[in-house]
């Protein structure tokens, strides 16, 4: 009995073994199928992770070279004197803005007083060009005729055909063409039209000579404008001296700058090529390498003569010489301008719009004076040998007010216009999206019946799938027109920024992006509301609170962090959106003029995403412009990454 049971037990131990089964042996590793599978998946996972890590590294690596590179360019600009020219240019830009305002006021006033008379000129010019087209052949015939009845008859026929030709041009078409010249003319009065017609006939009959009456009209109008006209005339030429100094410095310094920077670039290429040649096999029997080496040597030989000598000292002397004249010219500009401004103050102004413009221009004039003084002292201190520090190039990028590329002049890479543009559009978008999306989330989560929520939720989520390029094109084709039409409605004129000048503007981009952000914010906010334990709601309802009180006092506060995260993620999505802003933001790289207050929403801006999409095609890898785009990309990357990581942390915390 005992034996038997022992036997059975030894059997069972024999039979049962927990020992690991042998797999293949490969290179000393005990590889079994499970390990291989794990290795395969793990390999892919690490590949993915490495790739995503590589993105960060690559972005950093490509972008970071920008700082020293930009420093070199800035230093070159300083040595060649461009910086001095820029100092003067700032004043000229200020002057231009101011002059435009005053001129606008003038034109506006003139139109108000002599609008009808004024339109005669463009109508006449339009008709004149028609006559030119129409009679090109017939006039030849006509002049060949002898005097007499025949000629008179022919003249009558000619007159008739002019009338026909002008009649053929519909009034709408005429208006459209005239509008291009006089942007604020809406109607052509019959009187003006008739008058222009008469002159046009005269013109045709008098061998293409513009009738005196026509050429006299502008002068006549100006005379009648009196003090206003004199003011504008005084201002008009006050900048001449300064502009001349600017032009001569600019011309000289541009030549220097281009030569220096081309020399540097060629030298860099030569260095690069020689380094490559060194790395090749020098053994002539290695045919592959020797042909390559020969080709590169040839390239170097081509590049070498392109490096030219330049006498920077001579050029800079010229620049300093011009700078010495600057102060006098700047003072002259200001003093002459002052004369104009004084005249303006006395001039009679009838329209409200002109009055506003003049008021604005007096503020701008103060600014101009300030700019001029500031630049004067900067120019006095200016020294072409002062070193440019790395920190200078960092600030020039992050706080630079200009992004100018693609011209012959020095490229400027200032992030500010792009950053403010992106920020402004995103803020406008959030202004629309947040109340709508959060309101919708509260409604769907707290108030809607199950059936209603059943189609509202997927309906809103569905919007997410609309490709941004479709929305962008739709914005250009449909919404832009609607918005502009709406902004011109009289009863909406109280809205700041209305009527909108630019067809493509911040408001349009904001509205479209708000539509894109809605589903993101809605979905996440609805999730957050949904995560509030049912017990809270029930407890509140059981105390006799109504649905609204429960929603606002219990559910929303309990899910507040989630809602904030939803808003921030929506913001992140909006600021990173490319196609919509590229198509509808107008793409003018300038800092939005915040002095207009909320009216700034009617302006065209450029964005960080838009600039990358617009300019990637113009650049070769490795050049400074390329690195600048990567810098912008890096800034975008860091912004979105920081927004995301904060939000994900909030969401993760909540879901615990």
């Amino acid at each position, binding site marked *: 009995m005992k034996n038997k049971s*022992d036997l059975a*037990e030894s059997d*069972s*131990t024999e039979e*049962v*073994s*927990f*020992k*690991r*089964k042998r797999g293949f042996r490969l290179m000393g590793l005990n590889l079994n199928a499970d390990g291989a599978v794990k290795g395969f998946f793990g390999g892919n996972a690490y590949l993915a992770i490495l790739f995503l890590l590589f993105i960060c590294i690559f972005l950093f690596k490509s972008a970071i070279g920008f700082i020293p590179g930009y420093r070199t360019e800035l230093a070159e600009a300083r040595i060649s004197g461009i910086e001095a020219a820029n100092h003067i240019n700032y004043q000229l830009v200020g002057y231009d803005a101011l002059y435009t305002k005053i001129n606008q006021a003038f034109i506006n006033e003139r139109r108000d007083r002599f609008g009808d008379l004024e339109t005669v000129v463009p109508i006449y010019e339009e008709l004149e060009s028609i006559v030119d087209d129409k009679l090109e052949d017939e006039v030849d015939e006509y002049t060949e005729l002898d005097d007499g009845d025949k000629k008179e008859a022919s003249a009558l026929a000619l007159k008739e055909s002019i009338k026909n030709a002008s009649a053929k041009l519909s009034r709408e078409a005429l208006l459209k063409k005239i509008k291009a010249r006089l942007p604020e003319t809406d109607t052509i009065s019959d009187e003006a039209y008739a008058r222009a017609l008469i002159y046009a006939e005269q013109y045709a009959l008098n061998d293409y000579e513009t009738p005196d009456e026509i050429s006299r009209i502008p002068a006549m109008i100006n005379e009648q404008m009196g003090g206003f006209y004199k003011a504008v005339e005084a201002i008009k030429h006050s900048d001449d001296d300064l502009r001349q100094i600017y032009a001569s410095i600019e011309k000289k310094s541009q030549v220097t700058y281009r030569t220096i920077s081309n020399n540097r670039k060629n030298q860099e290429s030569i260095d690069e090529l020689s380094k490559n040649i060194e790395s090749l096999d020098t053994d002539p029997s290695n045919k592959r390498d020797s042909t390559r080496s020969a080709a590169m040597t040839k390239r170097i030989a081509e590049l070498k003569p392109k490096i030219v000598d330049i006498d920077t000292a001579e050029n800079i002397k010229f620049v300093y010489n011009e700078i010495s004249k600057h102060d006098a010219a700047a003072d002259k500009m200001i003093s002459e301008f002052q004369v104009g401004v004084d005249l303006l103050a006395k001039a009679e102004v009838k329209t409200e719009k002109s009055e506003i413009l003049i008021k604005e221009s007096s503020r701008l004039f103060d600014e101009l004076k300030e700019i001029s003084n500031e630049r004067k002292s900067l120019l006095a201190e200016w020294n072409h040998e002062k070193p440019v520090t790395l920190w200078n190039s960092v600030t020039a990028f992050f706080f630079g007010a200009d992004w100018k590329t693609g011209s012959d002049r020095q490229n400027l890479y200032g992030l500010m216009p792009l950053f403010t543009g992106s920020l402004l559009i995103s803020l406008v978008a959030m202004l629309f999206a947040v109340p709508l999306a959060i309101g919708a989330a509260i409604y769907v989560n707290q108030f809607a019946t199950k059936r209603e929520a059943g189609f509202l939720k997927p309906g809103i989520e569905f919007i997410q799938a609309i490709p941004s390029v479709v929305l962008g094109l739709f914005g250009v084709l449909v919404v832009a027109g609607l918005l502009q039409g709406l902004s011109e409605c009289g009863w909406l004129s109280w809205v700041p920024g209305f009527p909108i000048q630019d067809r493509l503007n911040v408001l349009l981009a904001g509205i479209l992006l708000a539509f894109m952000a809605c589903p993101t914010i809605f979905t996440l906010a609805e999730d957050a509301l949904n995560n509030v334990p049912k017990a809270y709601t029930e407890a509140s309802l059981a105390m006799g609170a109504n649905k609204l009180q429960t929603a606002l006092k219990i559910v929303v506060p309990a899910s507040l962090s989630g809602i904030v995260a939803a808003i921030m993620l929506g913001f992140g999505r909006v600021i990173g959106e490319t196609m919509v802003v590229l198509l509808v933001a107008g793409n003018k790289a300038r800092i939005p003029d915040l002095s207009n207050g909320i009216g700034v929403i009617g302006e065209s801006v450029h964005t960080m995403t838009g600039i990358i999409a617009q300019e990637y095609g113009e650049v070769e890898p490795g050049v400074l412009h390329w690195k600048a785009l990567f810098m912008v990309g890096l800034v975008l990357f860091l912004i979105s990454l920081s927004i995301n990581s904060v939000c994900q942390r909030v969401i993760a915390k909540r879901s615990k």
Partner: protein
Amino acid sequence: MNSKLIQLEDLGFSYDLGKTETIKGVTLDIPANQVTAFIGPSGCGKSTLLRCLNRMNDLIDTAKITRGTIKILGQDIHASDVDSIELRKHVGMVFQKYNPFPKSIYDNVAYGLRIQGEKNKSTLDEAVERSLRGSALWDEVKDRLKTSALGLSGGQQQRLCIARTIAVQPKVILMDEPCSALDPIATAKVEELITELRKEYTIVIVTHSMQQASRISDRTAFFYLGEVVEYNTTETIFQNPSQQQTEDYISGRFG
């Protein structure tokens, strides 16, 4: 030998790499072909100990055996050449919440054999029938073997899980509160089944119900704070406990 199918020797276990011990030096011998019940208040480590027996705790990264050994059939199951997968083929487990796969009844039972490479249809059919009969489910489901297991009632699902476990003919079946999610009638059936299974298998069961332990088990271990307070035949534990703590727990004065 017969009384020592599973031998635990001063076993310590930790969920956080040894910072705190959940099981503190347990020494137990579990005999073959008997039902051994682990009882004790929540969090006393009885389920953890159960999961140590087929190394289910390996699935948790930070889990660690801090000291001692577990021997099943005389073999140290943590020896370096022991494969946890081979071990689990011999030490099956039934979980607290019945968890059939969302497959057909047949596929559920045949799962264990299939992953061991069994492809022969008649062998599988035979094993499925045997296991279902063994778990007293055959008569109830023989007409709908191909329907989803999720269509069964809770008690049936749990018995299906038992059938799935015995299909691979393990030496030991670990049961982690198998009846806690079932109603009294289903519980009675499962208990009946356990009594039947004792003839062929060694069963270790964790339970919260003292009546259940007294009804079905041959031996009972009372755990408290990660230690075995008392381990003896069920009769002794329930009628004549040697420790005050055990008596308090059984008479319902705490826990």
